């Protein structure tokens, strides 16, 4: 399973960025190969509208099946994520990636609602 995190850094100690579309980084953890990769998303600051869908595209391109984030995506992003058959977990804002991953493993994160 490949898991995507919205983060403010590129390692296990980075914090979860509560924002979805305008997150600074996307971090991907591949549970099978136990490897981590990241995507710098900071150029999103130049996007006027539609930051959510653009970030969703990157998650798709990296082939994640699970997303762990903070507040949960807004309407437009939620619509895209819905199409991706992605499991979304919210409420991890401010945790480190490690804490968020453990919380996910222990079923302590809320499942996000796609109500777009």
């Amino acid at each position, binding site marked *: 399973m490949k898991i995507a995190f919205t983060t403010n850094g590129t390692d296990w100690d980075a914090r979860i960025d509560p924002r979805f579309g305008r997150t600074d980084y996307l971090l991907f953890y591949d549970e099978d190969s136990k490897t981590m990769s990241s995507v710098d998303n900071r150029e999103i600051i130049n996007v006027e*509208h*539609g930051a959510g*869908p653009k970030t969703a595209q990157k998650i*798709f391109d990296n082939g994640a099946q699970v997303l762990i984030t903070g507040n949960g995506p807004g309407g437009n992003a939620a619509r*895209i994520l819905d*199409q991706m058959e992605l499991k979304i977990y919210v409420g991890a804002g401010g945790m480190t990636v490690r804490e968020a991953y453990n919380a996910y493993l222990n079923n302590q994160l809320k499942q996000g609602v796609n109500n777009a």
Partner: protein
Amino acid sequence: MKIAIASGKGGTGKTTLAVNLALRAAETMPVALLDLDVEEPNGGIFIQAEIVEQRTMHRLVPEWDEASCTLCGKCADVCRFNAILKLGKKIIVMPELCHSCHACSELCPAGALPMRETVLGKLRHYRLGKLDFVESKLEIGVEMASPLIGQTIGYAESRCPGKSYVFRDCPPGTSCAVMDATKDADFVILVTEPTPFGLHDLGLAVETMRHLGKPMAVVINRMGIGNDDVLRYCESERLPVWGKFPNRREIAELYSRGELIYPQVEAFRRELDSILQQLESLPRQP
């Protein structure tokens, strides 16, 4: 004659003035009132009238035709609004982000993105005596105020002809939406309050309307609070002050219950009548 009623910020009494002025005028002449504050139209709260027509308003956005698509991805490349995504073997269109520029549709080599109607919002047309009231409301999540404002103006022009006045309750602020609601108006009435907030926002609104080259007048609401700075500003900028509505709790209470002010507050009615007189004295278009 098209009269836009605008203000630099929300909550200055723009809707109160628009509704009361239109209904007062309608006692003696045919008028229309358009609520163009399409994100948050509230004029309807104050007007109990018979509904004449209800319409769902549309605009055109592309729709993906899977069968003819070659998945070349050109559509996603040309869209500058992030409204089209290519996710693997799927093309996803997000109407909320689409500006209806038609580029993706017309540039698609396979013709796989025909333009189709999508819902913008609802228009409601009411009639009460000599007043036609038209309000439009954007769907939640739809951000395209401009096309809905344009269509509402167009609707009223064709469905409510021969009016002495068409009053437009404009969106607050100085954004594109305000420009859309005012750019072809004959005259603009700016509503403000005699406070530093009111003065600051009035300044922005005046600057915007001058940019559009509009003749205008100012109406001051809640006179008695604040200070004289707004009056002094109007004097130095040579802006006529057409009305000064008193600050009374009674008026705020009537407003809160969705009631009209002028039938119950004489001082308010006098100011309205004087505004109508000023309007009558404006030079008429040929």
